[in-house]
């Protein structure tokens, strides 16, 4: 069983949902990112999503755009992100890591070499924002060969008839982009999730994570009532900008408490 599947199986046995916080690698520098990864794992993060900086993050709002710019100025590269993962993994064998980014740095690195190096470094899953199912054959074979989960995005615009097509070849979990929009802007309501999540459950047994616009422990708890994981990104990046690593980790602990205490209405 993969690390990701193992985490979800364990949480399911306890009747809990997962918290997936996000770290933009190298924002504002490598040491901070490493401290965040280690600290998040100790403060209730069940899985950690690592943003791979890209000059043109088309699905991201102002917060992650700015984080990406700071990271690139700090010298971030895809190889550098893999190095960061390696260093984290040396001290933590259990927390799954998912890389989220855009296709071009991967193409530039070479898809086959990237998948091999990512797996060796200790990456568990990949989310490639601008690689829809229609183009996914570019990545799926090499990811499968290296036992990397390819996590697919589902959007409110994804129709019921399209869902099975999008989910074909996906593994790990499903990432539900809960709003039509960019990261860190609007927030889906409980009613939205109660309507949308069952639609996805009907076609897959994979755990469902909800992201885009999840900011507070209360919102994360609402997500945890309906879905299997809450992903929090922009709110943590903003906190880091205004404050320090310790306050981000305090927020992660509070989010984890919210998620873990949620009374689950479905599953």
């Amino acid at each position, binding site marked *: 069983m993969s690390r990701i599947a193992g985490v979800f199986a364990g949480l399911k046995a306890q009747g809990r949902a997962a918290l997936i916080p996000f770290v933009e690698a190298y924002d504002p520098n490598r040491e901070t990112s490493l401290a965040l990864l280690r600290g998040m794992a100790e403060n209730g993060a069940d899985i950690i999503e690592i943003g791979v900086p*890209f000059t043109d993050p088309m699905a991201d709002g*102002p917060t992650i755009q700015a984080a990406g710019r700071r990271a690139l100025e700090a010298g971030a590269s895809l190889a550098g992100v893999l190095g960061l993962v390696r260093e984290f993994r040396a001290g933590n064998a259990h927390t799954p890591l998912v890389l989220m980014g855009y296709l071009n740095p991967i193409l530039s690195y070479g898809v086959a070499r990237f998948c091999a190096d990512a797996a060796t470094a200790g990456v568990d899953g990949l989310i490639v924002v*601008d690689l*829809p199912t229609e183009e996914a054959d570019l990545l799926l074979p090499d990811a499968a060969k290296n036992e990397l989960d390819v996590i697919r995005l589902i959007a409110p*615009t994804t129709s019921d008839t399209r869902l099975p097509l999008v989910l074909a070849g996906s593994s790990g979990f499903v990432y539900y982009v809960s709003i039509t*929009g960019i990261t860190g802007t609007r927030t889906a309501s409980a009613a939205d999730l109660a309507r949308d999540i069952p639609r996805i459950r009907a076609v897959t047994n994979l755990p469902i994570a909800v992201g885009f616009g999840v900011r507070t422990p209360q919102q994360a708890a609402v997500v945890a009532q309906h879905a299997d994981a809450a992903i929090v990104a922009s709110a943590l990046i903003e906190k880091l900008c205004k404050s320090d690593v310790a306050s981000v980790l305090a927020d992660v602990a509070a989010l984890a408490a919210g998620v873990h205490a949620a009374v689950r209405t479905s599953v």
Partner: protein
Amino acid sequence: MNEIIPNSLRNGPDGRGRFGEFGGRFVAETLMPLILELEAAYEAAKADPSFQTELDYYLKHYVGRPSALWFAERLTKELGGAKIYLKRDELNHTGAHKINNCLGQILLARRMGKTRIIAETGAGQHGVATATVCALFGLPCTVYMGAVDVERQKPNVFRMKLLGAEVIPVSSGAGTLKDAMNDAMRDWVANVRDTFYIIGTAAGPHPYPAMVRDFQCVIGNEAKAQLQEAEGRLPDVAIAAIGGGSNAIGLFHPFLDDAGVRLIGVEAAGHGLDSGEHAASLSRGRPGVLHGNRTYLLQNEDGQIQEAHSISAGLDYPGIGPEHSWLHDIGRVEYVAITDKEALAAFQLCTRTEGIIPALEPSHALAHVAKIAGAMNKDEIVLMNLCGRGDKDIFAVAQHLGVEL
């Protein structure tokens, strides 16, 4: 329009929206259903003769097509070789070829029941053309424009506002065309139900590269017929400037299967191809994925996209339409590059010899014509697309020539 002919270079793209290995649909899942809906709507429109009839009506009576084909006699004499014909798309309403595409897309948007239009713009020509057709059809229009471009293209910003458009300055990245396109896509993702995104060049996710090309092919189709009438034959060379490549693909496409016609695309070499400040994606870039398509891009060794530079804001883009990437790789079209300085000289040459002030974009094509025409025979013919007029550029040109206005 896309009749399948064996061994034709005009059959692309394939079912996945690809020209060879280029093109495709590299967008987030939120947009994917929209892209598919757009493709279906465009296919239906192409199959409906009333759509073309409607487009033809506006092209004739609103844009003023067909645009003239002008034998540039003094320029020909000055260069001393091949006969030079200028396809005068600068005479179109709004002063450039951009309107051909905007009309096609807004008619499609209306067919699809969309009620809000967005666009990106670099120099502001596409923004003005989009704002124009929105005024014509009474649709609200939002134009994304890099903050740097807003500053250096003030007259066009004012034009767009007069036409009723909202112009949003984009300060992310370097604040130029690439960043404006990112923000237009972000707007589209957030407003999927009612909004139609009019992309200004033959790039982006499928079906945009094919659709924009089809709407711009009116340039090449007219020129082919006009030259037939004037000279009774095909040109020896057809040449056009390339940023994203919409005017060039519109000129080239109707000639792709005419093997005797040499096709030349002219990229912007900025301060020089080896200066690190240029917009020559084919000459100095390598394949990658940006803005929904796989194509040649200016990028660093880590796959981060680099900023382009050109004196002409309309060529200032680090990518190129995917069909050009394919035509480059198969060798059907030659791609060359012209520097800012050479383009400025050609700008003045055309103004002085023909009484036509060209935009800085086609001035790049003209600079290459000036390089090759003299060595050609007097009975040979060069056809160049004069895709825009230079009124918008006189301030920039004055500045480069050290003249204070």
